[in-house]
């Protein structure tokens, strides 16, 4: 036991003496958290909207006004011809072109029906879909107003049937993206820092030669490993704490659920990550290799964690694979506990799975660490 303390003491001294790394470990991730939580949003806003008004009546202008008034769209220009408009879209100056046909108002009054042509830049397919929905909503609303004004009682033999839908948004009334992303980014940062530091730390000692020195001492494997990993566990928990404070103070992320539960879960989760770091360092000889392999797996795990894109949208085989991804569980748990107040019972499946992973991963890591080769 005392031996472990000696190692822990040494590790802490080394970490805090490393003046170059300290800001990178603490300041940089937290700055990232602050800046990037503001960037990460799938909200569709400020869409570069343009129009070609071939009608030029007060009626067509009224339609344009509706788009001007919408917060989704920024009306950036109007064009006189489709050719010029297309060129602008190629340049990237606009992403939507609404073309109002000539005799728009006249045709509507005469034929009781008319078309509108819309061209949408669909490179971002999901965004394009949403933009289309918004455009339809605005046109429909404009349409209804027009109908209300134009329709005579004689036009209506039968009243149309109406299905009204009322949407309510629970836990996040304002649809604030930050509320959703901040816990996720916090997960990301805690994971990356603990993984890279723990992985590279041991390989570093290998490269310098001090690891060999340790292997010649009578120190037991488990003493060495616990002593080495414990400081990074502490670092991870520290990062979590600072991150949570920033989340609630700066971003007003609600802390609905139990803090104790969050800490408990994180403490087990970090063990999984540390185990991974150790495991990687046992099979690499240089820091470069260790970093690379860690990076490779982290990127894949993060992409498949539901952090940025929903897991339900993945094909079945991919969803199955995510069951082996500890980051996925952590992201779920943090969001559920923080924003909805889910209880221990609710997160029991994730909790047990992570616990199993912690045991398996660390078992593997300890087993593969050889003092004698």
């Amino acid at each position, binding site marked *: 036991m*005392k*031996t472990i*303390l*000696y*190692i822990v*003491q*040494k590790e802490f*001294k*080394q970490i805090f*003496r*490393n003046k170059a790394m300290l800001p990178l470990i603490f300041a940089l991730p937290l700055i990232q958290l602050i800046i990037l939580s503001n960037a990460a949003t799938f909200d569709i806003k400020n869409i570069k909207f343009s129009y070609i008004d071939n009608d030029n009546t007060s009626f067509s202008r009224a339609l344009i006004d509706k788009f001007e008034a919408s917060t989704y769209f920024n009306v950036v220009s109007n064009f006189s011809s489709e050719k010029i408009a297309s060129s602008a879209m190629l340049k990237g100056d606009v992403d939507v072109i609404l073309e109002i046909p000539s005799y728009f108002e006249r045709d509507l009054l005469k034929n009781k029906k008319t078309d509108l042509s819309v061209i949408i830049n669909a490179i971002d397919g999901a965004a394009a879909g949403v933009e289309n929905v918004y455009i339809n909503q605005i046109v429909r609303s404009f349409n209804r107003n027009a109908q209300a004004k134009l329709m005579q009682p004689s036009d209506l033999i039968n009243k149309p049937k109406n299905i009204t839908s009322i949407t309510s948004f629970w836990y996040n009334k304002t649809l604030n993206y930050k509320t959703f992303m901040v816990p996720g980014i916090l997960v990301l940062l805690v994971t990356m820092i603990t993984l890279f530091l723990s992985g590279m730390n041991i390989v570093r000692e290998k490269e*310098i*030669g*001090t690891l*060999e*020195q*340790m*292997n*010649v*001492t*009578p*120190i*037991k494997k488990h003493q060495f490993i616990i002593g080495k990993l414990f400081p990074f566990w502490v670092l991870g928990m520290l990062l979590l704490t600072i991150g949570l404070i920033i989340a609630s103070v700066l971003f007003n992320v609600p802390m609905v659920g139990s803090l104790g539960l969050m800490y408990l879960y994180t403490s087990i989760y970090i063990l999984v990550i540390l185990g991974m770091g150790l495991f990687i360092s046992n099979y690499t000889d240089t820091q470069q290799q260790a970093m690379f392999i860690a990076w490779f797996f982290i990127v894949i795990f993060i992409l498949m964690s539901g952090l940025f894109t929903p897991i339900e949208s993945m094909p079945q085989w991919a969803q199955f694979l995510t069951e082996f991804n500890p980051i996925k569980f952590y992201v779920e748990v943090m969001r559920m506990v923080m924003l909805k107040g889910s209880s221990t019972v609710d997160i029991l499946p994730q909790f047990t799975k992570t616990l199993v992973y912690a045991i398996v991963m660390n078992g593997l890591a300890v087993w593969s660490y050889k*003092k*004698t*080769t």
Partner: protein
Amino acid sequence: MKNNNVIKAEKLTKKFGDFTAVNAIIFEVKKGEIFGFLGANGAGKTTAMKMLIGISIPTSGKAKVAGYDVFTDPENIKKNIGYMSQKFSLYDDLTVKENITFFGGIYGLSRKEIKAKRCQLVEELGLEEIVNELVGSLPLGWKQKLAFSVALLHEPKIIFLDEPTGGVDPITRRQFWEMIYKTANNGTTVFVTTHYMDEAEYCDRVSIMVDGRIEALDTPKKLKEQFNVNSMNDVFLKLARG
């Protein structure tokens, strides 16, 4: 009958795939001896030493260090030996004091013992001024002497030194060897590898490895007679050519 051999190697072999780094070497080292393990770079000295200190498992053969078998008992070997690696392996970002305290603790010394040893060490080496300096900032000679002393903190039976005087000036080398003499006089066996042939003169007995095998094993005096030369350097040249 009590065996006076602290190290005994019988046909000790290490292979890496097809390449045989250490080829069935046989030798013994007596208690209190200064045993020089010589050879050119790449001859297999370091590989052999790694087996003896318990961090590399032999491919075949037998060896006992401090009474423990290298195959079955490497951890017990480690309790009884000290080691100074080629790179000196103290922590550059810890102070002199911290390094001593750390390694003392790892070897299971009590706080009191560590303190006593530390004071003794600092006095002997004259490190009072720099005891709170980072080891990384020390000149090579000091690092080396410190590493040697740290390896002896737990009073091991044998100390293994792997090329301990690399890159150091002749005066410091001389001082270092005086430390080795003193240690041997106290009953500690010193097992040292080196490729400086003049240092071979300082040893009680030397062995010379060439391409994985021990081609010569005797006292320096007898070896020079055997090969009819005046220096160990010439002994080596003869062996390498022949």
